[in-house]
């Protein structure tokens, strides 16, 4: 079979400079999304428990 790898080059991300910063951004983004969903849940929760 032919060599499966034409290239295995790593490269920096297109923004923020390092992959570590990208990963931190994803985690912050997730925290914001969950926080937003929590606010959404509380805002429209029934006034008495179901």
């Amino acid at each position: 079979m032919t060599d499966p790898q034409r290239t295995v080059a790593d490269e920096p991300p297109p923004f923020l400079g390092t992959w570590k910063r990208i990963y931190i951004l994803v985690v912050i983004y997730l925290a914001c999304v969950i926080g937003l969903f929590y606010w959404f849940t509380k805002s429209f929760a029934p006034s008495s428990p179901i």
Partner: protein
Amino acid sequence: MRALDWAVMFAWLVFLVSYGLWRGRGSSSTQEFMLASKTMPWYAMGLSIIATQASAITFISTTAQAYVDGMRFVQFYFGLPLAMVILSATAVPIFHRAKVYTAYEYLEHRFDAKTRLLVTVIFLISRGLGAGLALSAPAIVLSVVLGWPFRVTILIMGGLVILYTALGGIKAVTWADVLQMAMIMLALLIAFGVAIWMLPPDISFFNALKLAGAAGKLNAVTTTFDWNDRYNIWSGLIGGMFLALAYFGTDQSQVQRYLTGKSIGQSRLGLILTALAKVPMQFFILFIGAMVFVVFLFVRPPLVFQPVAMEQVQASSQYAALESRYEQAFDQRQAAARGIVSSAPDALRDFRAAQTNLDAARADALNLSGANDTNYIFLSFVTRYLPVGIVGLVVAVIFTAAMSAISGEINSLATVTVIDIYKRHMAKDSPDSHYLWASRVATVFWGIYAMVFASTATGFGALIEAVNQVGSLFYGGMLGVFVLAFFVKRCTATGAFVGVLAGEAAIFTTARFTGAFLWYNVVGCLVVVAVGWCISLVQARNK
């Protein structure tokens, strides 16, 4: 469906299959057939990964999940972005640098042939079941909606998938997915727009939110921990992360997608795109289900959503009484809903009482037919209320979404069969053209297998849960062995092998005590790592 709907549906089917064949043309080597010669850009990989997950099951079942149980299913995806980050940092560079075609090939580099074979067999069993389910589940629903015999539906779906996957390989699969993803989003936006448009003039969008909330449908986040509760923030973040780690890190149907990347960076970006898009997308799909529920507060839904079951109920002597109960409960619920909007006292109490009566009438009707109509709720909405032509488009997108999921699965099953079984154990030194031919034969084999399995597997409830439950029985064990391979340098081959067996035993034991399947992945992974590490330690001491 009207003539225009049928025309739109067939036009989309022909267009998508032709597009897949065109993009997959010239797959003349195994490298091209299995890895697209490592030419895929990040957005194609990312969209393809999302499209494979946003299969027909997403349309049919996720919307229904929100209709029945509220939006809490979104928590299932909370761990996914974390898993994407971990995999981008670990698995992506390791697999790329190991120069492998399959994830399991790496296990032989790291451990030995028997560990690779064991995990390969586990993958073939679990993914084989998954492929059958992915074909069967939507085929059951579509055959009823389209009025086609079940086996004919399977034959058409399976036949088209085999055609473009066997000829075009991973390139055809990935590029067809990109197009599919665009159409999925368009169809969802149309369905959402129609749901909002169907609200009565006196019910604003904010009122719709208020009603969905009052009915308990906007429960996106549950912070209370309960071991037996399938979906809360903890099971989503921890169990969901383990499931996503296992699915995207060890399941060849996903690993193969990011192995097609031009570089490590492109593969990482593909996963980051998935991390950013998946949770909001699932939220939106569930939100559509919640809005469909609100629409059906004012537009009377059928007693039973499954058309064939409805006919059985209508033929029964109890039909008139059931229909009368249902009608009365619907009227009471509608009046209570308007009371909630105008903040009338006791409106919420009346609403719940009416909902209980309505659910009881529906349950009695479903008992008469013995059917579960959860998976027909969204399609019932689509076929009854969307404009002519758009109905055909949405049904066609659901049809091809099922094909998209299956094509990725049979392509990965074929790749593993050829690379990890056939080439490794049966025909070691054949020319590349022979393996390419074998890959196409294996694709046809797995396609036929999925069709045969699908035609015998029926009777699942919520499809999305069934698919993830089957996966969770195996993923924990597979994830555990890759954790050992990546992070436990001293782990021996025997430790890894016995660890996987122990992990699978632990998962099946856990499944006897709880149906909260997200935790199976955590339990399985931890047992594999613990047993593998202990055995390796004992072996090191004995030496």
